[in-house]
């Protein structure tokens, strides 16, 4: 991965924990990555891998009793995890924004859509109501809503899911953030709308000069949209790679298993769907050694006792696997 510019976001060993009465659960166990300006980064993984919590913790929006258990999130040389509430509020929306996965309930039902966007604008900029209104209408048009001026005064329940998501996106970019985090923005939508929203995101990101972190479990979307992809499993990033090489030749066995579980139109119908045996581990029951070893077809002795280190591979990719070097080497040779 080539990042010649200074990263706009530098996450180091971020951990998230939930202290509960039965004990503390740690769903995110040390996540590190960097984000360059205008980079499109995808974070993929199954449900429960910790990807949404990672996103929430970047914005410090973890629901109580969740809290950041360690690590740093550096932006402009400041550690976001150490900022006061007030300072963090200025970052939210202004420098970094989050688009959520359930558009149906992510908007305040008793306020007009326009008013909510105006609020987002005026929180970060000292502009008049009229100016903010004009900006909001412009944004509504930019995200593809027809008749934006009329739509300004509509209420969320008067929109379909796809349109609400567009409104959410408009609201997120309204204060001109440098980083846009999209947490499964299309999961709740139908397939056609999904494609349109992804297109929209792509356009906006280019036009507004933003870096994007796209969190998804949809490998296809990640493949087409992202420059680089990080794969998460059991609260850690197990593989980092530019998109194209990842999908062509995955290194980590988990990524490989994920990709082979995809059905393709040119498969023989009688071919059984390759599923990964077993279940992803619960945060309170992470296996010893490599967390993936119970389900890994290549697991051997060492995997059951020693946690694999993050291995740096010759082409800049990384993978947390004891066999990383050989697997990468074998692929290059092949």
């Amino acid at each position, binding site marked *: 991965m080539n990042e010649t510019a200074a990263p706009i976001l530098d996450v180091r060993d971020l951990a998230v924990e939930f202290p509960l009465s039965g004990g503390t659960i740690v769903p995110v166990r040390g996540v590190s990555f960097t984000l360059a300006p205008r980079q499109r980064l995808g974070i993929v993984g199954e449900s429960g891998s910790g990807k949404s919590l990672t996103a929430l913790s970047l914005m410090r*929006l973890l629901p109580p009793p969740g809290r950041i258990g360690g690590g740093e999130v550096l932006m402009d040389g400041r550690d976001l995890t150490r900022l006061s*509430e*007030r300072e963090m509020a200025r970052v939210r929306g202004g420098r970094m924004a989050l688009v959520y996965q359930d558009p149906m309930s992510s908007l*305040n*039902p008793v306020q007009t859509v326009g008013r909510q966007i105006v*609020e987002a604008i005026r929180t970060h900029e000292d502009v008049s109501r009229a100016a903010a209104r004009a900006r909001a209408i412009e944004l509504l048009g930019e995200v593809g809503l027809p008749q934006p001026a009329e739509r300004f005064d509509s*209420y969320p329940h008067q929109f379909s899911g796809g*349109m609400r998501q567009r409104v959410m996106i408009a609201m997120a970019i309204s204060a001109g953030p440098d980083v846009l985090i999209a947490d499964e923005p299309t999961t709740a939508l139908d397939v056609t709308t999904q494609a349109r929203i992804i297109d929209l995101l792509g356009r906006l990101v280019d036009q507004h000069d933003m870096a994007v972190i796209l969190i998804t479990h949809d490998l296809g979307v990640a493949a087409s949209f992202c420059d680089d992809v990080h794969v998460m499993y059991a609260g850690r990033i197990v593989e980092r790679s530019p998109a194209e090489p990842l999908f062509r030749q995955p290194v980590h066995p988990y990524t490989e298993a994920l990709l082979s579980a995809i059905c393709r139109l040119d498969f023989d119908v009688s071919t059984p769907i390759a599923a990964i045996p077993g279940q992803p581990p619960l945060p309170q029951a992470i296996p010893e050694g490599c967390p993936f070893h119970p389900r890994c077809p290549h697991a051997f002795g060492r995997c059951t006792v020693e946690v694999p280190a993050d291995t740096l591979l010759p082409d800049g990719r990384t993978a947390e696997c004891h066999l990383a070097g050989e697997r990468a080497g074998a692929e290059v040779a092949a």
Partner: protein
Amino acid sequence: MRRYVLTRLATSIGLLFLSSIVIFCLMRVIPGDPTITKLGGSIQGVDPRALVAIRHQLGLDRSIPDQYVRWLGGIFQGDFGRSYYSQFPVTTLIQERIGATAELAIAALSIALVIAVPAATLGTIWRNRVFDALLSGFTAIGLATPAFVTGIVLIVVFGVKLGWLPTQGYVSFSHHPLASLKSVLLPAITLSIVVAAPVLRVLRASLVDVESASYTRTAAGKGLLRRQVVFRHVLPNASIPALTTVGVVVGGLLGGAVITEYVFARPGLGTLMVDAVYQRDYGVLQALVLLAAASFILSSLVVDLLYGVIDPRLRVRGAGSAQ
């Protein structure tokens, strides 16, 4: 929107009529002949002609539907009939007493809201476990404490021991504002606890619900400060379910007033009701029960109308179209 208002109005009026019929019939059906009550409990040795005369005087010799129509007609003209016991027009009795009850109700409601709303809101903003536990405790105790217990405790502390405030009687506000406030303070505090406890409980519950809604997270994600999130997004949405409870409580204030007025010897509609029960005075009773039903129906109506104003989802019926 207009259709909603009209429908609700029509339903309310219908309910009111229905209630009046039910109340009227109930009074006629339950055992106990009011004429006997008037005569002191027994018809032994009473001149039958006197009996007939009294029955005629009370209008009891007509058919029931006839009596109902006369009663209802009277009400429209502001005549609630006569007390079986004292022969005073019920309207007069009500007029004499309603001031005390109304002042009590308003004072109690104000105190309750001033306590409940800020307490619940602060609890949400701060998200402090200790404060929340305290609030829960107060709510539970408040819900379980009968008005007479609170009343007696207040009387003992502020009346007997400290002697700061009067513990009985009533001074009308228009008559003497300061004395009026002093006389209403203890009863109002007593009644306000009865009102505040359920409101506090439901408000806290709905604040918690709204707190976990996605749009609260969206609001914080925009860069709003905690108190801005609570005041602009959480509280407005949480008020909606709480409003129903407020309506129910307001409608039921007359019930709470009964005990409170009795404890503080305050001459209001509540004590009038107790007296009427002692005297088996159905003339007064049916008017009071109708009044109670009316106040409940009215407050339900107001709440429903407020809903229409606050919640836009109720307003637009079929006018919004998803695309």
